[in-house]
């Protein structure tokens, strides 16, 4: 009951924040020198940051599984990585749409930031191939957990790639001097990030509830057989 109430509250929060975010992007945040297409970044960057958070959360749950053997932590790790991969698809799609307009290409292989994010995405996409190639049980859980922890190393590399690489085609917003955004732009960005985070948290809990129910029904079916 408490879990259902929490999920309803989270869904309402996500819906409210999403509405506020869209309104702020189109009616509050000013259009800067990059033009109207810059508004893609208000969703593109928060989705990328949330994808990193999902992969990090998945790795943390994998670590908890290996360390404490907490029941359900393997499932939580799996669902978090699944969310991260879905968000990763959105990062690649929204980024490509922006690139097509600004650079005239859907994809630029010379950009380290883009290629490293693709490597991170493909690494976690391969997680599912590994997971479903092993029979369910402790062996699958352990191997998936180790793989998820290895993947987390790619997150800081992907994040720092833009700072260590020499290419200047990918825009840099967060530098060592702080965010290169105006006050209203930064506020809009913050609301957008909160909206995407709450949406991801809501979808994570919905998917997790479904998977837990599925497992319980499977056990019940076996006991009734």
């Amino acid at each position, binding site marked *: 009951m408490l879990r259902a109430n929490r999920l309803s509250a989270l869904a309402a929060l996500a819906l409210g924040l999403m509405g506020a975010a869209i309104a702020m992007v189109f009616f509050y945040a000013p259009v800067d020198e990059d033009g*109207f297409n810059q508004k893609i970044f208000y969703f*593109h960057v928060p989705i990328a940051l949330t994808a990193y958070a999902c992969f990090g959360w998945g790795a943390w749950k994998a670590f908890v599984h290996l360390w404490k053997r907490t029941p359900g932590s393997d499932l939580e790790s799996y669902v978090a990585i699944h969310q991260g991969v879905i968000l990763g698809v959105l990062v690649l799609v929204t980024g490509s749409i922006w690139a097509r*307009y600004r650079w005239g290409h859907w994809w630029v292989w010379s950009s380290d930031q883009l290629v490293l994010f693709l490597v991170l995405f493909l690494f976690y996409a391969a997680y599912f191939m590994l997971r479903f190639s092993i029979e369910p049980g402790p062996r699958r859980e352990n191997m998936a957990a180790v793989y998820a922890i290895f993947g987390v190393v790619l997150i800081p590399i992907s994040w720092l790639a833009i700072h260590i690489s020499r290419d200047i085609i990918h825009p840099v917003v967060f530098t060592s001097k702080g965010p290169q955004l105006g006050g209203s732009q930064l506020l809009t960005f913050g609301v957008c990030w909160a909206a995407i985070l709450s949406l991801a948290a809501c979808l994570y809990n919905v998917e997790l509830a479904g998977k837990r129910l599925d497992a319980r029904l499977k056990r019940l079916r076996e006991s009734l057989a």
Partner: protein
Amino acid sequence: MTTAEKYVTAAYLAVFVVVLVYLLIIGLKLMRLEREVADLEQRARQRPEQDAEKRKAVAVG
């Protein structure tokens, strides 16, 4: 509508469509789980009847 506006619309629509497809998949899964629950309920109701029939069928002595 300018070209930039078209691209922005496409990007936001992509996000909307992916979330919608995800919710559709979750909805379909929920329907499957509901069917399974109904099936298990039916089995649980039939079980006492089957047990009673088994008890009747056992020959005494």
